[in-house]
C-alpha cells in the first residue's frame, strides 16, 4: 500500500513536470510549419525555423535583411532587434515576429536552432534509466526479504 502511494506520488510529480515542460515548449519554442504559416493572417505572431540563405544577408539602417530557407521555400525576413550579431549565412535559426501581408516576416527575435529533441532525449533517457533501476532494485529486495523470512 505504502509503495503504491510512494510510486504514485513520484510518477504524478514527474508527469506534471514533463507536461509543464511540453506546454512551455509549445508556447515559447516550437516553430510552425511553412504550410501553417501561409494560412496565418497578417500581423499574427509566429516562429519559423529555417536556414539563412547564402548571399542574402544585408544590413540596412536599424534593420537586418535576410532570406530564410525552409525546405527550399524562401521567406524574406526583416529583423529589427538587438541580436543581429548572431545571424550568419548558412546557419539554421529560429526567427520570431509578425507575418506581413506579402508573406514576409517582420522579426523581433532571432535565436539559435533550439534542437529541443536533444533536451527531451537527454532528460527522458536518463530519468527512465534511473526509474527502472529504482524499480528493479526495490522488486529484487522484496523478493529477497520474502526468501529470508
Amino acid at each position, binding site marked *: 500500500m*505504502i*509503495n503504491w502511494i*510512494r510510486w504514485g*506520488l*513520484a510518477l504524478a*510529480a*514527474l508527469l*506534471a*513536470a*514533463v507536461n*509543464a*515542460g511540453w506546454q*512551455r*515548449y509549445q508556447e515559447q*519554442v516550437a516553430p510552425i510549419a511553412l504550410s501553417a504559416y501561409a494560412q496565418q493572417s497578417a500581423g499574427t505572431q509566429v516562429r519559423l525555423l529555417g536556414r539563412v540563405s547564402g548571399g542574402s544577408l544585408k544590413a540596412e539602417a536599424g534593420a537586418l535583411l535576410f532570406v530564410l530557407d525552409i525546405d527550399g521555400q524562401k521567406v524574406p525576413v526583416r529583423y529589427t532587434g538587438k541580436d543581429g550579431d548572431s545571424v550568419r549565412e548558412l546557419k539554421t535559426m529560429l526567427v520570431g515576429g509578425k507575418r506581413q501581408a506579402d508573406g514576409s516576416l517582420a522579426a523581433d527575435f532571432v*535565436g*539559435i*536552432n*533550439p*534542437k*529541443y529533441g*536533444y*533536451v527531451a*532525449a*537527454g*532528460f527522458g*533517457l*536518463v*530519468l527512465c*534509466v*534511473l526509474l527502472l*533501476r*529504482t524499480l528493479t*532494485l*526495490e522488486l*529484487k*529486495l522484496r523478493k*529477497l*526479504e520474502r*526468501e*529470508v523470512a
Partner: protein
Amino acid sequence: MFNQLFKLAQRLAPLIGLAAWLLLAAGLYWSLVKAPADYYQGEVARLMNLHVPLAKTSLLAYSVAFIASIVYLWKRAPLADQIAHAAMAVGIVFTACTLMSGSIWGKPTWNAWWTWDARLVSFAVMFLMMAGYLMLRTYVEDPERQARFAAVLALVGFIDLPVIHLSVRWWRTLHQPASFKGAGKIAIAPEMLTSLALMAAGMMTLFVYLTLLYTRRLQLQAQLEQKQRQQLMEFAQ
C-alpha cells in the same frame, strides 16, 4: 554507533526514495520551465542541469566506495565492504548516465558525440574502474578475499578522481573548464542555479537511497548463503 545509524537510515529508506524522486521532479520542472535559456547555447544548455549533477553524483559514489574500502581494510567490518560494493554498483549507473547525457549534450553544442579529450577519457576510465571492480567481485568466490581484493582495487582506482577534476587544467580539451571556480566564483547566472541545485540534491538523494537498498540486498544475500550452508551442514550430519 555507525551501525545503528545505518540501520535507522535503512528503515527510513522508503521516505528517502520518495524525497529523491520528488526533488528530481521539481528539478525537472525548474530545468525545463523556470530556468531561462542560455544566451549562447540556447535551449540545449538545459542539459547542464542533467549532466553536471550526474557527474558530481558519480564522483560522490566513487568517493563513498573509496572511504568505505579504507574503513574495511582497516577495521575488517563487513558492513564497510557492503557499502563500498553497493556504492560502486549504484555509482556505475550514474557514471553511465553521465557519459550518455554528455554525449547527447555534446552533439548539438560541440558537433561531436564523443571525442578523445582528457576529460572524457579520464571519466570513461572511472567507468571502466567501476566495471572492473564489479567484475572482480564476481570472479573471486571466497568472501574475505573478494572483499580485500576489491577494496585494494577501489583504492588504486581513486587516483583517477583528481585526474578527472584537473584534466581541464592540465591538458587542452574540447570540454569547457569548471563553472564552479571555488572561492564563491561561479560562471553561472543566479537564475540558472536553482534548477541545478534541485537536480543535484535529487540525484545525490537518489544515490543515497539506492545505495541503502543495495547494501540491504547484499546483507540479505549473505544471510541466505549462510542459511543454505547451515542446511547443507545439517544434511551432511
